[in-house]
């Protein structure tokens, strides 16, 4: 019916002078955009199926292809923009909730880009990290409030369990199921080589990856998939997932067709059954309830593992974090509203939650004001895109950052934002064996190691420029930041001065 027609969003431009009809585009497109016409000996395309993942563009040996946004658009309208109208059409066709993937693409303020970093000039010397020692190691966990001594005057080691990281960055939670076996293998191997940590997400830990335990955070979410005693003891820490930045307040739903073989076994649910993570933990309706789960997990692991509580950045995040810090948790992870997801209702992803920069600053200030900052470490996540974002997050008060979108980009993700289709042409967000094999963990893990080593170098250079030689000395050092183009309320929340002040 013509009223249902939507003009394709992208166009496939093929340079016929360059195309050698090798058909690699056809073989590599899981969306079946390309096809070969034997009668005419040419390649054809059905752009209505194209999601602009750039797989064909990247593999075309003669660079004969490009994907462009179509210029066939509706009449310009600042209020009723094209995307908005298309959403109405789609919903009128389907009657369904719009689904999207990865992080919020809307033009919301990115406060990282509105903060500038200081550097030393004349009165205080910068440090050259190539010539002088520069410490990027961090420890996450509750820090002791006082020094205790035994009757002979020897110091008693009262340090609670800690996570040790060679740099203040970790790969954040992505479940086995939402991403592929090879993506997990890449993350685990890279984390081990780098001396950092990756996170299992809520899908349990595949039996092959128990050997990476000391570089693993095991997650316990509302669905409690794959949680058992060995699992809890397998990792370096346990994370309770209360919420996710991309979709605060709602749960998750991995459709039954993805619950096959290893995933069913790892999640400990029957093959073909939908994996539904409820929106709340049904046993947590208060900080006291949370405390029970925190201590249940600590009991199960003999108080040897730090417990992280991960929450989405929402309006009352400072008060919530204050409660979590008193619940017995060792670490709080805060996930900002630009964080990624394997699938979320579009309007929740794009409209719910607050930016990580404001949430982080508010939480750090609140915990300091209440004198409980040392009870917990803070992890900031939700679109940390670069070494400078990491430096700014540390200066705002984070102990470490979670990255996931950047890690997936290193693995080949081109941010086409259609993870929910399960047809990821890059072998990341898919469980189809012929697609999963496209991600060779030998390549993937090396690219992650390269990315993190590059960031580590950059972090050292930026810190050196400020005359700071350790992450510890940068932590919460908001004097090293200045705002640019921010109003006084934003500056007040971020706890920084404006550039020029």
């Amino acid at each position, binding site marked *: 019916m013509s009223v249902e027609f939507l003009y394709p969003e992208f166009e496939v431009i093929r340079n016929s*002078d*360059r*195309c*050698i*009809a*090798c*058909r*690699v585009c056809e*073989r*590599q497109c899981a969306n079946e955009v390309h096809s070969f016409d034997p009668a005419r*000996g040419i390649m054809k395309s059905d752009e209505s199926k194209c999601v602009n993942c750039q797989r064909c563009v*990247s*593999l075309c*040996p*003669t660079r*004969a292809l490009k994907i462009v946004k179509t210029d066939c658009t509706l009449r310009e309208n600042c209020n009723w923009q094209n995307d908005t109208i298309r959403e109405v059409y789609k919903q009128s066709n389907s009657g369904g909730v719009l689904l999207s993937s990865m992080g919020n693409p809307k033009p919301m303020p990115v406060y990282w880009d509105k903060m500038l970093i200081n550097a030393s000039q004349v009165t205080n010397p910068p440090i050259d990290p190539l010539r002088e020692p520069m410490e990027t190691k961090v420890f996450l966990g509750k820090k002791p409030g006082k020094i205790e001594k035994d009757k002979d005057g020897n110091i008693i080691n009262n340090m609670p369990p800690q996570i040790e990281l060679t740099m203040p960055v970790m790969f954040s939670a992505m479940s086995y199921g939402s991403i592929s076996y090879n993506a997990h293998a890449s993350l685990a191997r890279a984390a081990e080589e780098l001396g950092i940590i990756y996170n299992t997400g809520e899908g349990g830990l595949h039996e092959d990856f128990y050997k990476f335990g000391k570089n693993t955070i095991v997650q316990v979410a509302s669905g409690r998939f794959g949680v058992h005693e060995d699992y809890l003891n397998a990792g370096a820490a346990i994370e309770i997932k209360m919420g996710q930045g991309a979709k605060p307040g709602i749960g998750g739903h991995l459709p039954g067709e993805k619950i096959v073989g290893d995933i069913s076994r790892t999640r400990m649910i029957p093959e073909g059954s939908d994996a539904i993570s409820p929106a709340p933990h049904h046993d947590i309706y208060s900080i006291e309830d949370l405390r029970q789960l925190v201590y249940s997990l600590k009991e199960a692991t003999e108080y040897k593992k730090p417990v992280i509580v991960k929450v989405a950045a929402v309006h009352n995040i400072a008060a919530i974090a204050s409660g979590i810090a008193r619940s017995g948790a060792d670490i709080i992870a805060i996930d900002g509203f630009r964080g990624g997801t394997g699938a979320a209702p579009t309007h929740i992803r794009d409209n719910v939650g607050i930016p990580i920069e404001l949430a982080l600053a508010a939480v750090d200030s609140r915990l300091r004001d209440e004198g409980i900052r040392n009870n917990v470490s803070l992890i900031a996540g939700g679109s940390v895109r670069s070494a400078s974002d990491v430096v700014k997050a540390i200066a705002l008060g984070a102990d470490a950052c979670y990255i996931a979108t950047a890690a997936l980009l290193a693995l080949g993700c081109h941010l086409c934002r259609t993870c929910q289709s399960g047809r990821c042409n890059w072998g990341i967000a898919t469980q189809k*064996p*012929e697609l999963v*094999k*496209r991600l*060779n963990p*030998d*390549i993937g893990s090396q690219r992650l190691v390269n990315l993190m080593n590059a960031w580590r170098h950059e972090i050292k250079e930026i810190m050196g420029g400020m005359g700071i030689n350790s992450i510890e000395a940068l932590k919460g050092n908001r004097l090293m930041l200045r705002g640019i183009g921010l109003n006084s309320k934003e500056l007040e929340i971020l706890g920084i001065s404006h550039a020029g002040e």
Partner: protein
Amino acid sequence: MRRVYVNEEWCLGCHLCEYNCAFANSGLKDMADALRGKPIFPRIHIEGNEKVSYAVSCRHCTDPICVKSCIAGAISKSDGVVKIDKNKCVGCMTCVLVCPYGALALNEDGVMQKCELCTQNSDGEPACVRGCPNKAIVFEER
């Protein structure tokens, strides 16, 4: 000796190795000029189906049966690489019959050709290896 090996676990069956091979041995500088609108005669071939695929090329056997079988003395082995002298080949295809891997085939001129590890073209290193997008084809000592 370093040889071309294929890990079928990572082979995607994309056939790029065939095109990179044909281009490397074309002697031309532009891939489109070399391969557009023509049948290609690569020295490596993708075998298999949608589930399992792998590239097959000359194994450069320790004791190559093709060398023994050649009635014209066109196939020889030097520095570990099995090579064909196109001027001596008479196109009898005995080597095709005896090769257990199916690694030899006729070229566009009707004489035999096979993988010579890109030692005889300007590439210098196997083009199939360099162009493999998933590192399924490797050039290594085993």
